[in-house]
């Protein structure tokens, strides 16, 4: 086995890196937008709108693009989804709006809704306009924990209703996973911060960064000091492989490294020649693809079940493959190999399903040499949340909420990745929106 530990920064020229991390989907030109928007049938009771977790009036905004009312299109989008700009880039549209587009049936090609959404939101952002306004001040003050998509969505909607909002964010920047968690080639430039600034420009929202729940303040204090609380702190802890040597050098949590890719100079990042990624979700794809784009020579993504079982969408799998990532399925890690300088490889056992669908090891093994190993096998709720004296009820590892996003505690709502549901930006935005409407209703009727 090689002991080379070939890890170094700057594997590729800067220009090549910039090229690799340019937009996955470049913005449509106005001509392309005109042609694409003309394809929309303006369906009644549109399946795309129904498939959108935030219920954007998709035929409505596309028609506005078609008529040249692009600004109006953006407002239509943002009225339902204040993070419509991010969602345009990162939504798995192939499993949401575009999957159900009637043009799939008619022409085997959906209207490119995501690209049109980006066209509209770019148009508005380029004009630095805030189309929303605040109702007169209500005198109510609401605390939001977490400045990610759910938290900011909630804060924006509450501020529109005239409430004062204070957002507590554990990290140094707002944006949550939009800022730290999304693949850089999907969210390049300062897109996430531009969106945060847009949301905050409404007024009535104060963000306090570097303030962690359970460390700098307690839920009890928030409940005492504010009229309502919205919890949207995600699930900050990463699942472990539970293997020996898991803390050895060269073994990373994928989410941590993805955050570094978003925050640091790409040329300064340590990049191994041979990479193993363990996991089958979009995070696994994101790290695998980005390591390839950073210049890794061999990137092998290993998943313990089959392609159909992967939570990464078909579309994401194709992105991985076209970027030269080897997808290896039906194998589970059993041993991390290392020497005194760090990890050297991973031994896997082949797996199969038994008659009842249970996963079994076959007793056969193989080893992949690696300079770096990335773990992307899921995340769970921050342990701190469990330490509250009066923490909200937890179910299946997430905060339990009702359909209005109310927790078991009076005056406390929750949304985003810390509650049950798909871990998508668009779903988090909807949680925030629903919670805000519920909070508003409750506060104003009391």
């Amino acid at each position, binding site marked *: 086995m090689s002991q080379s530990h070939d890890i170094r920064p700057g594997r590729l020229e800067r220009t090549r890196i910039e090229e690799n991390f340019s937009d996955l989907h470049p913005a449509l030109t106005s001509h392309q937008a005109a042609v694409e928007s003309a394809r929309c049938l303006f369906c*009644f009771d549109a399946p795309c709108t129904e498939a959108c977790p935030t219920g954007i009036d998709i035929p409505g905004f596309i028609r506005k693009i*078609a008529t040249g009312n692009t600004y109006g299109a953006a407002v239509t989008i943002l009225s339902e989804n204040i993070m419509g700009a991010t969602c345009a880039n990162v939504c798995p549209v192939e499993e949401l709006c575009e999957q159900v587009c009637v043009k799939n049936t008619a022409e085997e090609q959906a209207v490119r809704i995501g690209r049109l959404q980006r066209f509209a939101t770019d148009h508005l952002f380029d004009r630095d306009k805030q189309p929303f306004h605040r109702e007169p001040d209500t005198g109510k003050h609401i605390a939001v924990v977490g400045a990610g998509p759910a938290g900011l969505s909630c804060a924006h909607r509450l501020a529109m209703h005239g409430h004062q909002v204070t957002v507590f964010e554990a990290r140094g920047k707002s944006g949550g996973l939009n800022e730290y968690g999304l693949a850089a080639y999907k969210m390049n430039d300062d897109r996430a911060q531009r969106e945060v600034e847009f949301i905050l420009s409404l007024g009535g929202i104060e963000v306090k960064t570097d303030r962690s729940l359970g460390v700098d303040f307690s839920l009890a204090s928030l409940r005492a000091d504010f009229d309502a609380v919205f919890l949207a702190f995600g699930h900050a802890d990463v699942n472990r492989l539970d293997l020996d040597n898991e803390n050895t050098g060269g073994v990373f949590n994928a989410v941590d490294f993805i955050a570094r890719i978003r925050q640091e100079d790409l040329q300064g990042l340590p990049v191994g020649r041979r990479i193993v990624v363990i996991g089958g979700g979009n995070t696994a794809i994101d790290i695998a693809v980005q390591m390839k784009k950073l210049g890794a020579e061999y990137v092998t993504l290993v998943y313990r079940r089959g392609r159909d079982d992967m939570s990464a969408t078909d579309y994401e799998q194709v992105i991985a493959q076209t970027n030269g990532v080897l997808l290896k399925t039906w194998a589970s890690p059993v041993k991390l190999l290392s020497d005194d300088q760090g990890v050297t490889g991973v031994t896997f056992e082949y797996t199969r399903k038994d008659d009842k669908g249970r996963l079994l090891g076959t007793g056969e093994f193989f080893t992949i040499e690696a300079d770096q190993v990335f773990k992307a096998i899921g995340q769970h709720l921050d342990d701190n949340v469990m330490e509250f004296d009066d923490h909200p009820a937890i179910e299946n590892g997430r905060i339990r909420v009702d359909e209005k996003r109310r927790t078991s505690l009076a005056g406390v709502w929750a949304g985003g990745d810390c509650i049950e549901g798909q871990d998508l930006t668009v779903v988090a935005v909807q949680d925030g929106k629903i919670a805000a409407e519920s909070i508003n209703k409750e506060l104003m009727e009391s």
Partner: protein
Amino acid sequence: MADLRCNIAGVKSPNPFWLASAPPTDKRINVERAFEAGWGGVVWKTLGEAGPPVVNVCSRYGSIDYNGQRMVGLNNIELITDRPLEVNLAEITAVKKAWPDRAMVVSLMVPCNEDAWRDILKQVEQTGCDGVELNFGCPHGMSERGMGSAVGQVPGYIRDVTGWCKTHTDLPVFVKLTPNITDIRYPARAAREGGADAVSLINTINSIVSINLDSFSPEPTVAGKGAHGGYCGPAVKPIALSMVSEIARDPETRGLPISGIGGISTWRDAAEYIALSCGSVQVCTAAMRFGFKIIDDLVDGLNNWMDEKGHPTLESFRGLAVPNVTDWNQLDLNYKTIASIDPEKCIECGLCHIVCEDASHQAIARSRDEKGNRIYSVIDPECVGCNLCALVCPIEDCITMVEQDTGLPYLNWTRHPNNPDRI
């Protein structure tokens, strides 16, 4: 292969497709390119009097785009040819000599006096052309000078000028009519009274295609100002077909040869004009939109359709639609159709439902099946058979209008019990 040869008022061409008098027929180079491509004939762009030619403005065309499609309608503020008369006459002579089998008709527009018409006719006769077309149609520029549609809007002038032309030439005389009138039958009757061998219609329609919302000037804009132009292209075809049918049906003009013009872009359009009795058809916008190459499909498509339908010659289907164009009061009020939606073809866009709900008779119900699929179904007793759902449905043959057997006899309005003036 069907025989596409065309003979209208004695003017013969290998196919019925002529280029209308317009920019594509202004010069020898254009016309020869058209003939090389296979066009059956041309009407040379309108000649004026000898002497200083007219002057054209810069910025001449405006267009209507629809849903991403360019040039559904086109308008122009161009005048007649701006080249010297003798240059045009020499080129016409040369082209006709080089292409003897193609129809060469020359469009003319001179002031409303007999001498002017006699003089120009004598010169044009020397070219060897097959006929002349009197331009009584152009709605812009020349009309301000008492020509073009200024003549075409006064039946008496049409009759007189046509009569002068018939007096001073033996060439077939086509009279080109303006649609900018209330009833097309009056100018057509006047043309026939004057002895016209044929009428050509429609010329362009008075139009402003758009207002520029930055400069607040009409398009096309000439130094910040605009004037109405002449509208043509696919958008005007329905207007032209109606006018052609009026002339074909009118007892006073029935049988008068018609050269059909107006939005002809495809062989299908041409076949429709011929079915309404047109002898030849004239094309302009489609050639300006795509170039002359479209003649390939015009000829080929018409040919294949005629073969498929068993029409060996143009004559075998010419005018077949005329008897079926009637007055509203002759339509059968007991005829009934009901929309039928094919669920296998439905893509669930819901447009049939919402347009019927909002704009018609609330005759299409919506529901969901157990899988959540959208189901749209016609409420038969509510359906008035208006066609709206079938027209908006984006899928071919998904919604069809099915004839119902009412068991009732033919009954038109003139005999309907609700008509107080019934016969």
